[in-house]
């Protein structure tokens, strides 16, 4: 999947669906991110992990999009995790207090261990 702003890849590891995000996350990324979420959660995954290691740009619209994704995950009783954030994006998660609702892990291994997927 790809738009002018973001592209995503979806993988399954154990009971976790992983969304690999590349490029820019803005409000215009809504369709691509929601489609990736649907795919990642389609076959019974209990945890959805967002891989931000390919993230290049994010504005306030992108943060808003992550909140709506979180609401959707909560509604469907999925656990939402994040890993691969640079220090800069980790600070943005802390500034916007998104880190209080989306657990952040340094890498995929730790995120999957926390999800009990490995």
């Amino acid at each position: 999947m790809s738009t002018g702003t973001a592209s995503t890849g979806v993988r399954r590891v154990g009971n976790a669906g992983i969304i690999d995000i590349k490029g820019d996350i803005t409000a215009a990324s809504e369709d691509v991110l929601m489609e990736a979420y649907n795919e990642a959660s389609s076959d019974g995954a209990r945890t959805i992990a967002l891989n931000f290691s390919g993230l290049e740009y994010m504005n306030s619209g992108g943060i808003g999009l992550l909140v709506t994704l979180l609401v959707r995950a909560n509604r469907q009783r999925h656990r939402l995790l994040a890993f691969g954030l640079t220090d800069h994006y980790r600070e943005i998660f802390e500034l916007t207090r998104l880190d209080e609702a989306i657990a952040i892990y340094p890498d995929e291994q730790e995120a999957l261990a926390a999800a009990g997927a490995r």
Partner: protein
Amino acid sequence: MNGDEVKRETESSPEPAASRDAAYWAKQVSKLTVGEVPPEAISRNVEGKRVVGPIQGFGKMWQKTFKVRLHGADVSPQEVVSTWKEKFASFWPEKNFFYGPLTGIAPGEVALLNLAMPGRVKLSTGVLVVYADDESFAFMTPQGHMLAGWITFSAHEEEGVSVAQVQELIRAQDPVTELAFAFGAHKKQNEFWKDTLRSLARHFGVDDPEVETHGTCVDRRRQWRRAGNVWHSAAIRSGLYTMTAPMRAVRRRKAPA
């Protein structure tokens, strides 16, 4: 230090490349600090408060979008946002005051808001400019503000016409505000941004600006564990401050010179 040493040092500790958006985001702040304020401004309920997003709010989560097409105005989205940042306070509905930094709206700046409330109460709260680039800027609210969340102001082009937009992603911050929302505060809040956009459009020469509104309830659940947010309520605190003004005046008069 010779050239070889410099090279070795650079190779051993490479600096990560700065993100393209690094200059647009506010630096992480644990508590807000209010800078210099004009004498007429009421500076209460902001200093020392934390910012809150929609996750930390109490009520239903709403995404509301207000937009106005600047028909006939020869102005780019970047010019709209630049003017909006520069003259932000002047577009607000009358009797409501925005005391921003003299340097204009920039990431990390804290602005004071003095808002007209029923019963001649002047509600004092603020916002943090959390993000600002050439085409948008966003505010995050502090503890005690009626809303918990982000308000993004932006401009873009649709079919060759510049469009100015306000988008809120918010919850009522406490049960009292949520109750007020159920009894008409939503409508008042909507009118506030509609008036703001009409003023902005008129500034660019649009004669009879029409504001489109779209609202979606993103999350219908109320977060009861956040009910204690009411402790910080700027509306309640501002109301009490107004009610106790005569007592303070008497105490001042009795105090020895």
